């Protein structure tokens, strides 16, 4: 190579790096995103205390159902999603979706398969061995999102995340898109809990890594020119906490609550003061955790409601607790389920536009149960009353 060729090559290199540098400089012109607070002045629910429950999946068959999530669309309909098959991790596992029409008798319609192993393989144009955790949610533009796990090789540590979006309330969906989130064969990324909407329209989805280390992360999803751009950041390292559940307190502060997979069987908590950019070192709360999923949402008055298995072994109960100090101290509110030898697990909560709280969870691995209550019922329970 002559001196002139080297000079041209150096110039070309600098130009090629100028593209990402230019994008980076442009990002400084944008306001840093905070958590989107859709209730600028939260009003406490004044409705009469009420609490009802029903099964969404009606036919238990010989199989298992697990990992439900629920969201509300702009027209008030509810959408729930979970996976089901002959057993957890079976090759016939599919992702099911059901819709709840408010005011209609029979409430939940018959679940249908949204993603099967074959359809995922076809859409992703690669081999899919089995399906795992799905997460359904609606964004501020009334689009439905589905993020779900696929596995090509091995067990849960071989998981990768995929994304589908519906612009018409779940009637049609975009082709599944693989999200590349890990440098090592893009494996060991899983999803579980509620996403947080950001003020710039992007989404912060709590995810977790489960391979050599086990740690909580945030998947940041932003739409740019019709394409989804993703990146992730770590909430904490190590091998102690997974399945973060993030609750925004205001535009910059939030708490994250974790399933503990260490010998210390207690729920973990970390906080952020800069909208999820950096997090405090996680610590254990005084609430037990038998290595099972937890879920938290914010209520009026800055209170946080937490659903979890209240014990050190097994998942034989499902408990609600309330915190008025951003998750530092907790008061047990109500036991939703309790039965020795049974399993009530993977709770997922959502508060709808009418301030009703929807809780879905795995009921003995046979059903997905949907429980609805309001803040009046929680307040009643706090005072020791019964409805």
């Amino acid at each position, binding site marked *: 190579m002559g001196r002139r060729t080297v000079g041209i090559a150096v110039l070309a290199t600098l130009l*090629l790096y100028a593209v990402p540098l230019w994008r980076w400089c442009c990002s400084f012109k944008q306001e840093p995103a905070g958590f989107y607070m859709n209730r600028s002045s939260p009003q406490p629910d004044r409705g009469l205390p009420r609490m009802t429950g029903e099964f969404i999946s009606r036919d238990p068959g010989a199989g298992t159902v697990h990992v439900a999530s629920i969201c509300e669309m702009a027209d008030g309909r509810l959408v729930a999603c979970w996976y089901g098959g002959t057993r957890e991790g079976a090759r016939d596992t599919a992702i099911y979706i059901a819709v709840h029409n408010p005011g209609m008798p029979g409430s939940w319609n018959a679940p249908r398969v949204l993603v099967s192993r074959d359809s995922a393989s076809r859409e992703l144009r690669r*081999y899919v061995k089995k399906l795992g955790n799905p997460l359904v949610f609606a964004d501020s533009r009334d689009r439905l999102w589905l993020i779900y796990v696929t596995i090509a*090789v091995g067990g849960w540590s071989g998981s990768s995340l995929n994304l589908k979006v519906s612009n018409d309330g779940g009637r049609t969906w975009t082709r599944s898109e693989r999200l590349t989130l890990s440098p*090592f064969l893009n494996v060991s990324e899983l999803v579980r809990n509620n996403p947080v909407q950001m003020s710039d329209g992007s989404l912060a989805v709590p995810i977790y890594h489960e391979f050599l*280390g086990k740690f909580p992360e945030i998947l940041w999803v932003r739409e740019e020119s019709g394409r989804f751009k993703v*990146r992730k950041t*770590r909430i904490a*390292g190590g091998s102690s906490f997974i399945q973060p559940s993030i609750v925004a307190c205001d535009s910059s502060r939030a708490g994250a609550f974790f399933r503990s997979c260490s010998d210390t069987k207690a729920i973990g908590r970390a906080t952020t003061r800069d909208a999820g950019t950096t997090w405090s070192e996680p610590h254990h709360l005084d609430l037990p955790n038998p290595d099972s999923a937890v879920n938290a949402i914010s209520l009026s008055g800055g209170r946080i409601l937490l659903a979890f298995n209240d014990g050190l072994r097994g998942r034989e109960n499902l408990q609600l607790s309330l915190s008025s100090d951003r998750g530092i101290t907790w008061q047990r509110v109500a036991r939703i389920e309790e039965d020795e030898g049974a399993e009530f697990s993977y709770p997922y909560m959502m508060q709808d536009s009418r301030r009703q709280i929807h809780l879905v969870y795995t009921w003995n691995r046979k059903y997905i149960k949907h429980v609805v209550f309001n803040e009046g019922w929680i307040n009643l329970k706090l005072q020791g009353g019964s409805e």
Partner: protein
Amino acid sequence: MSFAFSFLFPWLFALLVIQWVTVKVKKPPLGWRLTAILAIISGIFILVPVRGLPLARWLIGINANFSLPLVACVFNKAWEHASGSRLLDRQASMASWIFGLSSGLVLYPMALGLGDFDPYVSGWGFSWLFASMAILTVVLLVIKNRFAAVLMACILGYDLNLLESHNLWDYLVDPFFMLFSLAALSTWLTRRMRKTLSG
């Protein structure tokens, strides 16, 4: 673009395998006419549908992001079989192996959970990684090391979104490239030590 590009590595790899078989019966260089025939055969081979998927996409099911240095190494070997000359000379090959091993050692342990720092995050947008790679490329250009061209291809591929990943790390290194670099460096070191010991 990334879907079409995903066939490149499986195609080159299949070509290399067929070339390896061919050189058992015909001494290299194989020549361009024979290489073109082998390239067509390997192209047809990777498109053969197996249970509804082209064979190439089965490989993509294991790893969708083969790094560009690995693609370059395979291309270099295929070129060598065809022409008898090397696009990446000894210095460039050595630079690529050192780069593959060192970047893999920096990235994988920490990205998989060793410590709290995740270097993979730096690949999503302009960061110290981009600045380091730009400097390394310029240095390699100045000392006239051909591996600089491979690093230039990496940032070009990133700008053009050639891979499924939008992270620069995935354009620079993958686990197979790291293992290949480790094997190549180990072989080189072993040979050098034997040579020194023998005298």
